[in-house]
């Protein structure tokens, strides 16, 4: 369906006179100016903020991202201080950017409860596109998108995170785990 724009709008006499409409526009901006002037300028001088400011002083002040936010993927470290990962390689296959690199190892009994464990698990954040497919593919709830997006650094080689850097305790990922269960659970994976 074509979107039709009527360019031949007949302006009323009042609108064609320019001045009243200009004054109306200026009134709106001036109202905003004075509202904000008394709303959030006193806030900088140490008074209570009366009006919501949408601007955040980013490095000093951060907001909580929503659970659906996809930051850098991390590995979950479970209650027994072991990674949930079983080195099945599904995330490696699911990854469209090939940024995940897993070297699986046979379990000698102490690394994990199951047969396989990841000997090495690296994610190259310089390559990662933060799509969240790895999280979706994971059958063991081992890899999650965290809310951490501050991963800029000067050396590209340092963007390659190994196992120790990737592991994050499960307790910090609770919200995201719940969210993934809700989201991906409805597809009966």
């Amino acid at each position: 369906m074509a979107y039709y724009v009527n360019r031949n709008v007949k302006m009323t006499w009042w609108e064609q006179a320019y001045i009243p409409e200009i004054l109306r526009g200026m009134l709106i901006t001036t109202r905003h100016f004075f509202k904000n002037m008394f709303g959030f300028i006193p806030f900088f001088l140490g008074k209570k903020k009366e009006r919501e400011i949408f601007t955040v002083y980013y490095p000093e002040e951060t907001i909580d991202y929503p659970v659906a936010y996809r930051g850098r993927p991390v590995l979950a470290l479970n209650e027994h201080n072991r990674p949930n990962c079983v080195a099945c390689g599904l995330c490696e296959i699911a990854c469209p950017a090939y940024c995940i690199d897993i070297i699986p190892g046979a379990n000698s009994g102490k690394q994990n409860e199951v047969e396989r464990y990841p000997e090495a698990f690296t994610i190259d954040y310089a390559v990662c596109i933060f799509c969240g497919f790895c999280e979706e593919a994971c059958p063991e709830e081992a890899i999650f998108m965290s809310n951490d997006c501050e991963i800029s650094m000067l050396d590209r080689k340092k963007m390659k995170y190994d196992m120790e850097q990737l592991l994050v305790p499960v307790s910090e990922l609770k919200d995201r785990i719940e969210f993934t269960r809700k989201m991906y659970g409805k597809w009966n994976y």
Partner: protein
Amino acid sequence: MDLFSISDDFWIDLGVTLLKIGFMLAVTVGFFAPILTWVERKQSAIMQDRIGANRADIMGFTALGLFHIMADGLKMFTKEDFIPQGANKFLHTLSPIIALVPAILTFAVVPFGGKYELWGYQVNLVISDLDVGLLFVFAIASLATYGYVVAGWSSNNNWSLLGSMRTASQMVSYEVTMGLTIIGVLMVYGTMQLDEIGAAQENFWRWGVFLQPLGFLMFLTASIAENKRIPFDNPEAESELVAGYFTEYSGLKFGMFFMAEFIEMVTIGAIVTILFFGGWHIPFVETQDIIDTFNFSWLGPSFANLIAMGIHVGVFFAKVCFFIFIQMTIRWTLPRFRYDQIMKLGWKILLPLSLVNVVVTGIVIMALK
């Protein structure tokens, strides 16, 4: 010629004139030009529910972003002074000066207070009390056009050239309206001396805005168009012409164009205040009232005059600030006109209206006589 043969009056005159020039330069170049860069950023930000410039700090103290003025100035000083290949170097360097000097020069005839009797010496708060003050303002202000046109031409850049062409046509179109608009003011007050026009508006109901309401609106419109600010910023339209006539300018030359624009804003504010908003007068308060109030016997009438002078200068610049605020609000409220719309507004609406204004003013003056 022997220096000592010159009378004392000359030296007093010289000293007072130099003081006035110094004051005017300090206020325009030293105060308004830098502070307006900050005001423009901050006001637009607050108007749009943002916070605005506030990152520059000295020892963690930001002063509401006022240090950005210094930071900007420092940045402009340290930037490379770039002259493009194929540009006319002489004219390229000259044009910012041609643009800036008229903007400052206009203040030579702008009165910022009335006449005061100080210890037997008559002080007239205008640097040069020209008989053709108003004409001088327009003559000098139109000189600035050369700066912009030459800037565009000498840059060897098509964007700049287009910008300067637009400047030329826009300035020419709106100068006609401006000139015809002030004729109404001249007819009402019967003088071209700006300080006399200001002095004639001592009575609140004799203010220009009541005698010439249409003239005021048209004058404000035309002068904003002259200054090339939004909604008339076609010569420097960012989305069409990169930056218009100053595309190829960097460093302090760019800063001079910038400063010229802000000083012109002050000029417009000052001229509008004098012509239409009672100059330095407070509504319903006459100069004699102020002098009488502060005329304590132990200080003498000169001291009362001095206080009146201070109050009047303060009131004048308060009014100028108000008109700068109005201009900024317009700039952040209205979108840019299309080029043909600017020409249409200038030639088809404002010019006939200004002619009508002159005729109606004449008829009313005739009828009242």
